[in-house]
């Protein structure tokens, strides 16, 4: 764990451009609004959906928007707007679960490695380096093969795959904090390792934990959508934005792209908003140090 990596996926130039955009206060406000709306829809989407998202009527196949059906119907005659609203739950809460699990495991590994140092640090580094060798999607495919397709297996696999990214970045910050004298003062006072880590070490790296979590949320959303797209995540007919992008493919070929396009745009909007907000939080964290 000698180098500090960044979250995968962005080149240096792209990252600099993203940071410049994210630095704007107005952009941050827009991002917060997009995320708040997405969260609200994820929570109350099922309750406010105007139609049953799984009720199909082949007579309505690929029928366009009308007064009672804002986005029209998909290939099986299901109301697209209702499916978008209901699909928000798995599309938002799935990545959230991935990020929470990866953060718990990553923070634990980073703090133990930084606190104990020596062979414990080396052993955790080796395990993280091994995990780095496995792409998240590959782990999700393996999990689906072992446990069967579904959101739970995919989310667990992605959480395992993302843990080293969190652990590596946080470990560097935790080692820096560990070397500061207020930590040594706590040890001399007689505070337990748990008390020092939970009251001092973790709170002082918390801004980094939050910014890493938001950055990873975007990647988790895209990866889970991709897993659903290849049929190993959320299973049809359950509504999910990734599933909708996949099942809308025949419509795209026939000139009815509404299903793939609407779900794809929702994914892009939330991912961009979360990533820009994550960059904003990273910037603030760096400025405050």
């Amino acid at each position: 764990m000698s180098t500090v990596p960044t979250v995968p996926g962005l080149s240096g130039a792209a990252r600099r451009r993203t940071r410049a955009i994210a630095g704007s206060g107005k952009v941050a406000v827009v991002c917060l609004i997009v995320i708040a709306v997405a969260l609200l829809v994820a929570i109350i989407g099922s309750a406010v959906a105007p139609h049953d998202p799984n009720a199909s009527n082949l007579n309505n196949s690929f029928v366009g928007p009308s007064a009672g059906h804002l986005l029209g119907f998909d290939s099986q005659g299901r109301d697209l707007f209702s499916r978008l609203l209901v699909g928000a739950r798995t599309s938002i809460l799935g990545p959230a679960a991935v990020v929470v699990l990866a953060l718990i495991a990553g923070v634990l590994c980073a703090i133990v490695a930084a606190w104990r140092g020596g062979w414990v640090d080396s052993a955790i580094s080796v395990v993280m380096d091994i995990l780095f060798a496995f792409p998240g999607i590959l782990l999700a495919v393996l999990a689906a093969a072992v446990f069967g397709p579904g959101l739970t297996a995919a989310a667990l696999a992605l959480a395992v795959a993302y843990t080293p990214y969190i652990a590596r970045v946080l470990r560097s910050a935790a080692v820096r904090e560990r070397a500061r004298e207020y930590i040594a003062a706590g040890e001399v006072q007689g505070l337990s390792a748990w008390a020092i880590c939970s009251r001092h070490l973790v709170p002082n790296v918390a801004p980094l934990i939050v910014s890493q979590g938001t950055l990873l949320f975007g990647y988790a959303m895209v990866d889970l959508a991709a897993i659903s797209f290849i049929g190993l995540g959320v299973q049809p007919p359950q509504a999910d934005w990734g599933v909708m992008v996949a099942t809308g493919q025949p419509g795209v070929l026939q000139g009815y792209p509404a299903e793939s396009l609407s779900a794809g745009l929702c994914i892009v909007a939330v991912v961009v908003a979360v990533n820009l907000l994550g960059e904003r939080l990273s910037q603030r964290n760096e400025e405050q140090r």
Partner: protein
Amino acid sequence: MPDVVLEARGLRKEYGELVAVDDVDLEVREGGSLAIVGESGSGKTTIAKMIVGLTAPTAGSIVACGRDRSAPSRSARERRRRGSEVQIVFQDPYSSLDPRQTAEQALDEVLRLHRGGRQGGRAARELLDLVGLDERQGRALPRALSGGQRQRIAIARALAAQPRVVILDESVAALDVSIQAQILNLLADIREETGVSYVLISHDLAVVRQITDEAIVMHRGRVVERGSTAQILDAPQDEYTQLLRASVPRPGWKPERRRRPEDQGAPA
């Protein structure tokens, strides 16, 4: 003669091939004050870390308040007990306080650990008062305070555990001269009021003279001279101590500039 509150015998610390501290003996009496003097890298801070338990000695023994502390503590109770015997104030006031904790919170945490929180905010206010800080400063985060004020909080936090010995590891070195004087006066007052003993680690001989009675001089991990502070500073016996003494700038002092070998044959 007052009781010995801190005693180290045959202290040695090795880092691989490097011997940082070799065969060091020291003794601090109740209410006494010992200076450990020497240049950077002479092993002063390593001794402090061994005494407070931040690093384990390779050999030798450390006894504080009659109890051995050479080996790492094994229980929470032992850790707390050691904390109430010897405390340390570090050099850098900017990194020795948790940036997210106010002075009151820092003191409260120590008070709850060592006194069970029975005295609550009153004890914290008394400590702040002892080190000359008001309530507003007590509620401020470290970043809103000056270096001198932060060091006062660090001193108060060390005293909150009611230790018998406080180690001052270059504790005024990062402060400007006027603040140094204030902190040294404060330390002298606290010693008079509480009877606490000091181990002052410093390379600054003027600071050493102000608050210590005894001194040891260290060079390359070994003690080269020991005695009363006045005797060591006024009539140093060892050659290294004499060099250390002579290197202190004074009025009319002109440091002798050594010529580099490549300048020897160069035209003027």
